[in-house]
């Protein structure tokens, strides 16, 4: 009896496309050329809101050599179809944000093209713009719909109103804000298209969701689905920034190709990419929390507001996720959440890893420390008294069935970070020191997959095909962008089939040849699509078994190859298909916004140790411990890579990534002035995994892509407070902000001196 094959799931196999990447042979969109190709550029609005009066093509440019496209050239609908139909592909008559696309130009000479872009003058009669969340909520101007509100949600658990009236509770309030954040993938947005009325439209490009682009282009061109073909090229980072925006730039490239009859490539330079594309939604969260004196949560009232920019895009879904995560991994019997996302005249905000949860979790975890302090409990003890346990319900009334053990994660995180000893040591050393040290944590969760009935609505499909020589191709629309999707799918399929890793091929996501397995977002790729990959792979085996060509339970690669060859020789293609069906027992009610929001949650506690220099007000993260329970770790190196990368982005979100706005436009759109961390700015990030298999994930895996960006900002700000006593409630916590906070605290102390209270 041969010994069982070692499983690939759980081991760190080589990255599928790793060799191409380390040799420079991987081909990204700007590496691709076609004979006769033209370059394309976009002429954009310089005004935040207004009526287009005139478009002038200035003198000195040989305009007859150029392809010029405006809204008038759109064969189908002038719309970037996503959820609403409000965003035009090209502005027609009106503009609603700076950098809105108005005219497209193409020419073979990229330098002359740039001169031409400068020579187009668009006269816009300005209308009064709105730039802040507050002004939009106050309806100083109505700039979208009837009341500027893209979407609102209400969550009602128990009876928060009655609970707040209780006499035995302490009520703590707080307001917290987060700024915009730029995804800053190192490869800028890029698309290349060949398009004509005879053959249809083909687009190659940097993207996360080929079928989103497909749907958008079907509407733009008014063509049948099989006349639009979208192919994902090697993609240099996405993080959500290439979830919805690619439909816009793909539409632009395709229109220029359509009109010119030539292949057209549009590649943004960094300045354009930063200024014109989506960012994380800025947020304002107001918490009002009632707790008993012995630290039990009684009621939470949360007002969660997001700035959505000029068009709806994905704002409703970002709001949804932020709303559902707003009350955190705690049990609270009464929860009231009111959330809204509103319009402003800035380029639309969009998907960025975490997708609303980093914003609401930031507010919550700062507030939990605040509540703990108000009742004289340590932050960790307060959490322990309120962590949700199996059989308890979340804010949306979802019963947690799994054996979640947040206390265990907290214990481990505090132990690995030497939290208790450090708190003591810092409390002793800080008084009088120029450089103060602090340690703080955040405890949180992140739901994987689309919310509620979203996955059922997506009805994702995966296909698998066996070749005559016994190799297997897996066909999904899910995109490798560095997270390791290709590798994970190959591991899963290989284990399911008993084949070697190198016998599994992952097809390039090409809408002409892969089914719609849904977008590569929402931490769903490994958990939801990976499970479908497994099912499709097993489906191949099942087909062979049903045909009597392979014994059930036979996992020999040779027998599979032999059976596959026989099948294909005698019957034709050997294919299998799997489609998503929701795990049994999940119920979500959109009307009451209650029920089972997600099939699975990953759980985490992150600890940040910081130094704050009181002469320069700079904060540095010296150590970072990340403990998370993720179901099952499919690939240890890739999984750790996701956590480390997400934490780095979270540290930037917390401390340095500041978008400077001038009248709705990003003023610091260069890598010199938009500050992401370098290798000198980050500590070694220490990652620890716990496993608690999720029955419906491949090998027991839950989604983890977004989890790591939820924790760093609140952990760091809690650490800053531990170091300095300052309660900073807005990020990024730049040195300038810390200085203002120090000054305010000093002024308050001078005005009403009270003995300094030692922090718990």
């Amino acid at each position, binding site marked *: 009896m041969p010994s069982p094959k070692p499983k690939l799931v759980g081991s760190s196999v080589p990255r599928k496309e790793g060799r191409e990447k380390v040799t420079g042979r991987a081909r990204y969109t700007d590496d691709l050329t076609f004979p006769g190709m033209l370059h394309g550029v976009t002429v954009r609005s310089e005004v935040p809101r207004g009526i287009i009066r005139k478009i002038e093509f200035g003198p000195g440019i040989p305009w007859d050599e150029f392809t010029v496209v405006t809204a008038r050239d759109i064969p189908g609908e002038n719309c970037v179809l996503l959820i609403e139909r409000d965003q035009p592909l090209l502005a027609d008559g009106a503009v609603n944000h700076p950098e809105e696309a108005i005219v497209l130009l193409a020419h073979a000479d*990229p*330098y*002359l093209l*740039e*001169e031409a872009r*400068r020579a187009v003058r668009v006269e816009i009669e300005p209308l009064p713009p709105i730039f802040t969340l507050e002004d939009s909520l106050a309806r100083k101007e109505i700039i979208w719909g009837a009341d500027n509100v893209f979407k609102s949600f209400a969550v009602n658990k128990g009876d928060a109103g009655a609970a707040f009236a209780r006499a035995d509770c302490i009520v703590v309030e707080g307001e917290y804000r987060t700024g915009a954040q730029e995804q800053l993938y190192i490869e800028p947005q890029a698309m290349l298209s060949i398009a004509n009325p005879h053959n249809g439209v083909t687009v190659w490009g940097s993207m996360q969701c080929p079928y989103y682009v497909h749907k958008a282009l079907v509407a733009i061109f008014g063509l049948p689905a099989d006349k639009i073909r979208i192919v994902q090229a090697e993609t240099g980072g996405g993080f959500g920034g290439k979830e919805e925006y690619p439909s816009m730039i793909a539409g632009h490239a395709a229109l220029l190709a359509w009109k010119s009859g030539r292949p057209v490539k549009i590649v943004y*330079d960094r*300045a354009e990419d930063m200024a014109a594309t989506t960012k994380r939604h800025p947020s304002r969260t107001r918490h009002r929390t009632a707790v008993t004196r012995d630290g039990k949560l009684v009621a939470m009232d949360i007002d969660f507001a997001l700035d959505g920019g000029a068009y709806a895009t994905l704002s409703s879904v970002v709001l949804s996720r932020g709303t559902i995560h707003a009350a955190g991994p705690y049990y609270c019997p009464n929860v009231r959440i009111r959330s809204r996302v509103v319009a402003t005249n800035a380029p639309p905000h969009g998907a960025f890893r975490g997708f609303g949860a980093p914003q609401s979790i930031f507010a919550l975890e700062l507030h939990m420390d605040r509540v703990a302090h108000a009742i004289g409990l340590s932050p960790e003890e307060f959490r322990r008294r309120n962590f949700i346990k199996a059989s308890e319900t979340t804010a949306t009334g979802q019963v947690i069935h799994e054996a979640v053990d947040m206390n265990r994660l907290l214990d481990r995180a505090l132990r690995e970070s030497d939290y208790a000893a450090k708190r003591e040591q810092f409390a002793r050393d800080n008084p009088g020191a*120029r450089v103060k040290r602090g340690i703080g944590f955040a405890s949180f969760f992140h739901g994987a997959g689309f919310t509620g009935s979203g996955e059922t609505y997506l009805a994702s499909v995966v296909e698998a095909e066996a070749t005559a020589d016994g190799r297997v191709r897996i066909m999904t629309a899910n995109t490798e962008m560095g997270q390791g999707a290709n590798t994970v799918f190959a591991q899963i399929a290989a284990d399911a089939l008993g084949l070697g890793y190198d016998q599994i091929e992952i097809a390039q996501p090409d809408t002409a040849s892969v089914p719609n397995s849904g977008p590569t977002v929402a931490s769903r790729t490994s958990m939801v699509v990976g499970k479908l990959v497994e099912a499709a792979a097993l489906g191949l085996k099942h087909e062979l078994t049903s045909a009597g060509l392979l014994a059930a339970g036979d996992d020999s690669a040779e027998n599979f190859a032999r059976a596959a060859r026989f099948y294909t020789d005698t019957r034709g293609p050997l294919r299998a298909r799997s489609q998503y069906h929701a795990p049994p027992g999940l119920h979500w009610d959109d009307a009451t916004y209650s029920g089972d929001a997600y099939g699975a949650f990953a759980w985490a506690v992150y600890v940040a140790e910081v130094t704050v220099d009181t*002469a*320069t*007000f*700079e904060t*540095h993260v010296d150590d970072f411990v990340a403990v998370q329970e993720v179901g099952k770790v499919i690939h240890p190196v890739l999984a750790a890579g996701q956590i480390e990368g997400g934490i780095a982005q979270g540290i930037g979100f917390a401390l*340095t990534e500041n978008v*400077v706005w001038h009248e709705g436009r990003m*003023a*610091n759109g*260069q890598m*010199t*002035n938009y*500050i992401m*961390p*370098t*290798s*000198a*700015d980050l500590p070694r990030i220490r990652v620890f995994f716990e496993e608690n298999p999720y029955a419906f994930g491949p090998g027991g895996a839950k989604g983890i892509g977004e989890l790591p960006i939820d924790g760093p900002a609140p952990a760091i700000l809690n650490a800053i407070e531990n170091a300095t006593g300052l309660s900073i409630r807005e990020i990024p916590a730049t*040195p*300038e902000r810390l*200085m203002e906070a120090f000054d305010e605290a000093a002024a308050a102390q001078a005005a009403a001196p009270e003995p300094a209270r030692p922090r718990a």
Partner: protein
Amino acid sequence: MRSFVPAYEMRTPATLAETLAALAREPGVWRPFAGGTDLMVLLEGGKLAHRRYLNIWKLPELRGIDVADDSVTLGALATYNEIQNHAVLAAEFPLLCRAAAETGSVATQNRGTLGGNIANASPAADSPPALVVYDASLELVSAAGSRWLAYDGFHTGYKQMLLRSDELIARIRLPRDKKNWIQHYAKVGTRRAQAISKVCLASAALIDANSIRDIRIAFGSVAPTVVRAKAAEAALRGKPFAPGSIAAARAALERDIAPIDDIRSTARYRLRVAQNLLVEFLKSISA
């Protein structure tokens, strides 16, 4: 790429003499181009108005670092990498080496030159405060001859300097007279590497047991040019170590510098941090 690159011309003269002849023959038409780390960023951004350049990168007359008994003289094309790796500079001119290590990245330091940095005249440059503290002087050469100027005062306003259009910066001389001084460099940037400075302090103090006998204080990023903080120096020169002199210097500094709000930081922050950095240095030498 926001510039019409085909319109830009670059010629490579074989010698310094050829370069100076071209500058003299057509004043203002040609400009020197060294490592390009500043100019190429402007080209990318569509902001490089001048279009005709003389590539001086390989001119041997402008290279090298010469050590004499009383001074070290750097060729204008000395790169930040060469500066950091020079034994005498590392030993006696640590502020300049620190500035070189803080400028950009390894790749920038391989191409960025001291002369180019001076001619680019960014108020946020990392080396100028060190040069001011070291009482550096510059040799400017032209077809008509050469002249030496003190570096302090060379920059007369934002991007203005005492350099004629037919002149090149050829050499930078640093007197070897601060070996016994306590030297201190502190840069506060937007992050720990590849950072444009928000405030940059270079300082050197000659002390005895009780007092500051002499001191140099220079700041970057807090005025349209590098600033020698003369009022702060005056409040300290010859004064005893005492909280009173430190407080006086802190207050005097407000008269020396004129920080602004910009996309990186605020005037209030820059002033406060400039004062704090100075005070921290003074406290450290008083101890």
